[in-house]
């Protein structure tokens, strides 16, 4: 059965992006058209969600057309329970990003919106591709708009940041391409399902796993290939930071779950200690680093790295759980936790960067020391900021808790110390986030810039309010998200734990 819904989700924002660009100097029209397109794209997710059956691992809403017959590469797209939440997240986050830029972006407005819309389509493409070459196409294409967003609308050191961002991610991706080509030469097929099913020796798996891991670890980013992220965030405009943190980082986690682990499960079993070590370093080491940041965006960037550590940790726990307990019970919980953490972190980090954007628009500084007592002048904003900070600290009742809770429960099954080190986020996460809140939000009015701050306007209230509702809703009732993923996670657990030898 062929459906065009997914294609619409991919190409509507891309084509719409070019239309917006064509509006050029007609700024108001560009804004409204961009908003319309992003809202329609989000609305298209409604039938996608409503028609989706989470109890099965099968790809749904498939479309399969010939693309490059010479390589047997096909335009083959579809969603399963792992891709769907990320697609909805992408469509969801783009709307606030568009609204948030309403008055704060004044340079090349049409192009700015166009870049975000095109990026949205490409990112949805990444999550829906069922063909590895198509995946690679979207994966690399997506870098271009982000490169431009940081490079054109970014801060003073934007050139250094863009090049670092581009080289880092590109270097990782090259290894992935090599792995894909190697496997294609064996199977003559680029379909991801075929790659997941192909037999591979341990030696081959090891190399393939490492090649994929190079690409995805950079994207997540994992320690020690994370240093591009703080620079990119600091220089990126608010919207760029939001999309970067909320969605782009998730592609690393998604790739790990879609490619590295199912294609090379035995290598995963062999190298899981390595991945777990890096993940725990991300949680603990980066937690300490976040503590001493003076720049709000850097602090949130480091916090992102620490939180993404839970994604990579949850993804590879399955092997150690089987190794420690002899039973796969709990392996799925780690994967569930990784997925929930990705969605939740998308919402929370997006919201945190939007909050920084709100303050930056008023004071034009990202330095913590430039603020103090913001709540005196911006009580509503202060309430939002405290809520998102609590979510960032993993408070139960917010989405930030759900993923971390599941991963810690699963980690305990693998090893007491994994759980103990991961659980330090309760202390470290709260320490760096609440210290930020104390210095920026609470206290007496810090200086005359703060004294002149005006509370959020209706537009900002809408953006932060929608995110706040989502963060709380997902924290209070995460069952629908888990139900959406159930079939796919079960299938993935089986694939990860099966052996190809």
């Amino acid at each position: 059965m062929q459906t065009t819904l997914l294609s619409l989700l991919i190409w509507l924002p891309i084509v719409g992006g070019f239309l917006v660009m064509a509006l050029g100097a007609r700024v108001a029209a560009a804004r409204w058209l961009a908003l319309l397109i992003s809202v329609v794209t989000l609305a298209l997710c409604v039938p996608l969600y409503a028609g989706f059956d989470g109890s099965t691992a099968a790809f749904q809403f498939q479309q399969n057309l010939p693309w490059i017959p010479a390589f047997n590469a096909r335009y083959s797209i579809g969603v399963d329970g792992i891709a769907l939440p990320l697609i909805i997240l992408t469509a969801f986050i783009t709307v606030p990003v568009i609204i948030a830029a309403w008055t704060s972006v004044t340079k090349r407005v049409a192009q700015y919106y166009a870049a975000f819309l095109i990026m949205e389509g490409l990112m949805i493409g990444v999550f829906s591709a069922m063909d590895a070459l198509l995946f690679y196409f979207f994966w690399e294409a997506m870098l271009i708009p982000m490169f431009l967003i940081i490079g054109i609308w970014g801060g003073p050191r934007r050139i250094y940041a863009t090049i670092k961002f581009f080289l880092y991610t590109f270097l990782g991706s090259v290894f992935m391409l090599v792995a894909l080509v190697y496997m294609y030469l064996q199977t003559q097929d680029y379909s991801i399902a075929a790659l997941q099913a192909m037999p591979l020796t341990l030696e081959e798996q090891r190399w393939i796993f490492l090649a994929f891991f190079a690409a995805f670890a950079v994207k997540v980013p994992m320690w020690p290939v994370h240093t591009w992220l703080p620079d990119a965030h600091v220089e990126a405009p608010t919207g760029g930071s939001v999309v970067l943190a909320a969605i782009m980082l998730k592609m690393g986690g998604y790739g790990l779950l879609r490619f590295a682990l199912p294609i090379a499960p035995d290598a995963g079993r062999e190298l899981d200690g390595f991945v777990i070590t890096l993940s725990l370093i991300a949680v603990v080491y980066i937690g300490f680093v976040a503590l001493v940041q003076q720049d709000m965006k850097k602090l949130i960037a480091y916090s992102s790295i620490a939180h993404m550590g839970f994604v990579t940790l949850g993804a590879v726990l399955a092997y150690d759980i089987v190794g420690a307990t002899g039973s796969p019970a709990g392996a799925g919980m780690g994967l569930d936790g990784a997925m929930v953490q990705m969605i939740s972190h998308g919402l929370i980090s997006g919201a945190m960067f939007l909050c920084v954007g709100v303050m930056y628009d008023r004071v034009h500084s990202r330095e913590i020391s430039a603020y103090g007592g913001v709540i005196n002048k911006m009580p509503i904003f202060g309430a939002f900021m405290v809520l998102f900070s609590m979510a960032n600290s993993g408070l139960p009742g917010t989405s930030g808790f759900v993923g971390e809770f599941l991963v810690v429960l699963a980690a305990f099954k693998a090893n007491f110390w994994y759980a103990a080190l991961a659980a330090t986020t309760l202390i470290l996460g709260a320490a760096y986030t609440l210290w930020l809140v104390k210095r920026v939000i609470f206290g007496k009015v810090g200086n005359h810039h703060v004294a002149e701050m005006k509370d959020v306007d209706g537009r900002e209230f809408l953006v932060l309010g929608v995110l706040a509702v989502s963060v709380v809703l997902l924290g209070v009732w995460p069952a629908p998200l888990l139900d959406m993923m159930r079939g796919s996670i079960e299938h993935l657990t089986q694939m990860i734990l099966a052996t190809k030898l």
Partner: protein
Amino acid sequence: MSLNPNLLLWIALLPLVASVIAGLFGRFIGRQPAALVTILGVGASCVLSLVVFKQVVFDHAPVFNDAVYTWLVSDGIRMSIGFLVDPLTVMMMVVVTFVSLCVHVYTIGYMADDPGYQRFFSYISLFTFAMLMLVMSNNFLQLFFGWEGVGLVSYLLIGFWYTRPTAIFANMKAFLVNRVGDFGFLLGIAAIVYFTGSLQYSDAFAAVDRIAAEHITIFGGHAWSALTVICICLFIGAMGKSAQVPLHVWLPDSMEGPTPISALIHAATMVTAGIFMVARMSPLFEGSDTALSFVLVIGATTALFMGFLGIIQNDIKRVVAYSTLSQLGYMTVALGVSAYSAGVFHLMTHAFFKALLFLAAGSVIIAMHHNQDIRYMGGLRKYMPVTWITSLIGSLALIGTPFFSGFYSKDSIILAAEHSHIWGAGYAQFAVLAGVFVTAFYSFRMYFLVFHGKERFRDKPFPAEQDHAADDSHGHDEHGHEAHKGDHGDHGHAHEPHESPAVVWVPLVLLAIPSILIGGIAVASMLGGSYFDGSIFVNLEKHPAMEHVAEHAAHPGTMGWHAFLTLPFWLALAGVVVAWFLYLKRPELPAAIAARLKPLLWVLERKYGFDWFNENVIARASRGLGALLWNVGDKAIIDGAAVNGSALTVGWLAGIVRRVQTGFLYSYAFWMVIGLALLLGWFLVGRH
């Protein structure tokens, strides 16, 4: 007749709904409507709790244990939100909603002129919701939700006056120290899921025997009993929330919050959550003597050593705060000697008399225009008769005067400690006995200094500069003399203290009644009878202390008369007499004694150095480590050497290679000849 699940749901949700209305729409509906909504919400919740109490205790409704909704299902484990309502729960529900209601009413007077009026009501209602979720839970997930929820509201309320540097330091400290406890708590929960595959209490209790046979290897080769690990982890959570040494450091600082929340959160309810939790987990703790001894020693240390600190405090609220720490230690001792019901019983009586003492202190603070230094009070009994009498009742209950509520609960704990044979019981017995003298001494030191003796409140000009240097715009002017305006409206003679308005003193009276009576009424059933059967499990063969307590508690009258022959009574009396002698009879003596005991005072004034250690060692080391990892790890090694280093290396190589491309034909020809020669040479030589 079984309990109605909708009724239970409303008990929890009404305060939440009221909180949302007051919090989100407070600025539209106005000050008094916001107060009214929350009071109605909590009031209705209190009435419904009493209804449920009647159904459970008198009509013997079966224990309610059911899910409300499924939070999520992961890997076959259903995690749900649900209620467990048994006698232990209904007791907590009534205590929480009743004290909360009193505090709500009191707040009308205490916060009358505060600009954050609606926000305050919203917070305390939200707190009531979170606390109810905590006590009504039937699973560890919701327990943790309520646990952190009350922590959140505590954070918001300690920092309620967010322009005060001390307040926003104290609230962050409170949250972080609690998070240290929660770190252990979360691991304990994870361990339970590991062994039982469920978050339900009932599953965990059913699996106790199986868990008891299991071991966990944590350090090297030493295998720990799984139950010990679980119980100690859970108890670390309780140490944070119930402020046990060494995680007690946040509670004295929490006094930065407005007084009503000190009464509600930091005395009566939230800080007792740890005690409640351990009592609820009694089937688990009974399986590990190691864990019980750990609990016992921590509790005994807190009970005695925090009491000492109460003696040297001059801030009225801090005296009560250290008293709370010490009393929480008593409750923990009860848990350690397997007298869970005595611990919970003391929790209940303490909730009433300590909330009373705090609210009375708040009433005094109003009269003193927010000067909290007891050295500048004195003789207030003439001016504030209701506050005086109710404070006296609270103090008498606190020191365990026979027939008062506190007597029955505290004496039961001392009895239990005497009859316990567990490791550490001897130390605990000494600590709780010595603590009786200490408690009586600091309580009546404060009582005499505030209500009797010379009137010293005129000695110091207003505003008080010493303790409230940090007290800026939110100081006395905004929420200061709120209470006066109601009955005078005239600030001309504001220096003359007088009784607080009815919204302040009525809650005092309401709390004074159970402070006197509830102990005598309930002790026979709760400690001597079968009230907690089914809620609390004790292995009486191994831990027989409670049997002895029950014998005494079954006859409250006899127990009261008998007390005059026992050591605790005489110790308490001695404490009162010494306080009287030192602070009323010979007020010049304390200074002389202090001069003699300088080294001891030095230690006490530094509160044994916990704060110093945390701020100068732990906090500083964390920031130092962060800076080190950032500057050396990220900036120098990864970015400096690896990333920019490889970029520079590429650039450097390119620079060299570039030189080869000179653009001169002879140069290329030269290199071609050299290359040809080398190739040929390799062919000729290498071929052999």
